């Protein structure tokens, strides 16, 4: 007979079985969750804690030649709200509106939009403005207002060299114009990435997962621009536009020997900090993007070729008729209508078209083309500016037998940019060696490695021919068409240029002219070349001279620019 169980034992047994089943269930669930379904809760947990964050690379800075910032990036503050968390959205809109410069009604609409959980209050605020709002929000303990950072590109010098520096698109900091566009990849750097575990407040969890792939900051650009000379040039150019009623104008200042662009100004200009409000036509860097027929300033190439080839000398005398008919075209000079005997020096000083055509005839089309090409015409002058036009120089085999050579000799049928022409004169100033003009002096990468720009150079004419040319150009200012280019403190030389403006579809304009003057200063010990080009100047000076001529409108601009630039560069005056 089996022993009778005590009454509590049965209950204990039941309880034990229940517990055993429960433990088996828990164990089963544990094995299932840990073993077979572990990925899903693990992923869910990671999603809550582990964050994959992109790290934006700071964009490089653009400096002038003295290391002063022309374009700089900062971490600007963006203020946002979560409307669903706002206690009194209308009152907040009223209080914030004057602080962020946004109409109250606009903010109110954003804050009261049904179902909205995100709205901008203000984007890309700078330090003090952002701090004011932060203090305001913290003082009143307003919930639902958040502060984040966004990169912002700032141009501290405003309109200064704006066409050279360019600007970036606000949203993604991609370069749209100027150096910002040309060097976009270099300036932008490489974005980084980090994987980090954060707590619910966004703080990194110590000992948590942390994988950092740091962003590589963009490289800095050191330009050749001298900010003070650039400012002086811009002021002089804007004043000249007002006085000559020109549509636009551009000035290039090149340093002789190095090819460095010391100043490059175009007027009208714009402020890159507010480019969205500016006239898009002002974005164009006319010094490199606009082409024009250079007119008499190109005669220096014709004369230099003739001197170099030995077909004439500076003192060679020629019989220059009052007019010249070639094919169906009649060539004339401005200041004489009868046949005169002129030396080559006088032909240059008086800018005689007919005399230059006669000299070109001695040189011949083939050799003339050779020199035009060697001086850099027909191809891009510099490699570091965007939208640079190569201009137009037809191969001599395509030149017609009649007017092509003569017209080219006096600066027609050839399209050039102001920078190309400045480089031509710089070669004459540099004893015949053409140096590639450039705006970027060096690129400094984020690790400090310096990469200087090495311009190409080539001998175009001999030192002797270059010296003779400088003497002839000096004569243009001392006793020729360029007398208004004389600077008070420095002896200078240069060449005037006036061409009828070619209007596409209409032909040459009766009224509009491109007036230019390109010169060297000081002419006896050259330091700079200044090219001034004015588009369609109109009217007369006080002494009733026609402002449409380069010698009247552009030459005085050259004198002012040369004087200001040389003083700034510390060049001692050579006129006592």
């Amino acid at each position, binding site marked *: 007979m089996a022993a009778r169980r005590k009454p509590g034992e049965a209950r204990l047994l039941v309880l034990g079985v229940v517990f055993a089943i429960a433990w088996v269930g828990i164990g089963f669930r544990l094995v299932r969750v840990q073993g077979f379904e572990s990925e899903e809760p693990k992923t869910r947990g990671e999603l809550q804690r582990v964050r994959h964050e992109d790290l934006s690379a700071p964009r490089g800075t653009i400096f002038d030649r003295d290391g002063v*910032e022309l374009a700089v990036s900062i971490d600007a503050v963006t203020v946002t709200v979560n409307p669903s968390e706002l206690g009194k959205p209308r009152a907040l809109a009223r209080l914030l509106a004057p602080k962020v410069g946004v109409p109250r009604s606009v903010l109110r609409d954003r804050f009261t939009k049904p179902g909205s959980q995100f709205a901008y209050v203000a984007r890309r605020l700078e330090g003090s403005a952002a701090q004011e709002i932060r203090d305001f929000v913290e003082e009143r303990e307003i919930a639902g207002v958040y502060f984040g950072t966004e990169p912002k590109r700032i141009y501290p010098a405003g309109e200064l060299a704006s066409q050279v520096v360019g600007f970036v698109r606000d949203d993604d900091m991609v370069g749209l114009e100027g150096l910002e566009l040309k060097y976009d990849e270099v300036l932008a750097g490489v974005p980084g990435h980090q994987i980090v575990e954060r707590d619910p407040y966004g703080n990194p969890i110590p000992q948590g997962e942390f994988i950092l792939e740091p962003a590589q900051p963009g490289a800095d650009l050191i330009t050749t621009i001298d900010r003070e000379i650039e400012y002086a040039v811009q002021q002089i150019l804007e004043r000249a536009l007002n006085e000559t009623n020109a549509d636009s104008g551009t000035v290039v200042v090149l340093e002789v020997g190095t090819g460095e662009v010391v100043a490059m100004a175009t007027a009208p200009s714009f402020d890159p900090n507010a480019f969205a409000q500016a006239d898009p036509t002002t974005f164009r860097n006319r010094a490199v993007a606009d082409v024009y027929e250079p007119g008499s300033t190109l005669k220096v190439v014709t004369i230099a070729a003739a001197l170099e080839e030995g077909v004439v000398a500076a003192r060679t005398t020629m019989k220059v008729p009052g007019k010249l008919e070639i094919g169906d075209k009649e060539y004339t000079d401005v200041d004489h209508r009868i046949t005169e005997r002129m030396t080559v020096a006088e032909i240059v000083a008086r800018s005689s078209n007919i005399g230059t055509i006669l000299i070109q005839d001695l040189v011949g089309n083939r050799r003339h083309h050779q020199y035009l090409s060697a001086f850099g015409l027909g191809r891009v002058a510099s490699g570091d500016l965007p939208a640079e036009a190569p201009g137009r120089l037809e191969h001599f085999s395509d030149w017609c037998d009649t007017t092509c050579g003569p017209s080219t000799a006096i600066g027609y049928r050839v399209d050039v940019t102001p920078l190309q022409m400045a480089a031509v004169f710089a070669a004459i100033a540099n004893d015949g060696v053409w140096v590639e003009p450039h705006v970027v002096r060096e690129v400094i990468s984020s690790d400090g490695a310096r990469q200087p720009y090495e311009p190409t150079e080539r001998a175009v004419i001999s030192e002797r021919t270059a010296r003779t040319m400088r003497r002839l150009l000096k004569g243009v200012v001392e006793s020729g068409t360029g007398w208004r280019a004389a600077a008070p403190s420095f002896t200078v030389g240069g060449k005037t240029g006036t061409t009828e403006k070619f209007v596409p579809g209409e032909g040459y304009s009766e009224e509009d002219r491109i007036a230019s003057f390109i010169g060297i200063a000081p002419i006896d010990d050259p330091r700079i070349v200044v090219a001034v080009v004015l588009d369609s100047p109109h009217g007369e000076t006080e002494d009733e001279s026609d402002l449409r001529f380069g010698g009247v409108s552009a030459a005085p601009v050259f004198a002012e620019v040369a004087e200001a630039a040389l003083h700034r560069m510390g*060049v001692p005056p050579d006129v006592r």
Partner: protein
Amino acid sequence: MTAQPVTAESFDLVELLPSRRNPAQLRPWVVFAVVVVVAFFALILSRVWLDRSGFELDELEQKIGFEEARLRDLQLELARLQSPERITAVATANGLVYPQERIAIEVPGIDFERLDPDFRWAQLKVVLTAQP
């Protein structure tokens, strides 16, 4: 060696321990237990210290970021203050004008062949200092 009297309170312990071991034999076990406990607390303390350092590090990184941003702001402010446009406006407001005439003065003892203006200024200062 004398046996310890067994009390009622220590009965359970005595039951669990090997009956014939004396305290000297137990010492290594006690030391081991103490070491384990100390190590455990040391580990906890080190984790706490490490976590605190992590927070401090994070705080310092934030501070560095803040100071770097401040540096950039100040550099920007400096560039704006140096803007020729601003300086001209302030100068004009204060009645300054550009000189209508520039006068060049040749000072004996200064090398005018050197084009560096800073060098010439330095020479000029030397000349002026040497004046009686």
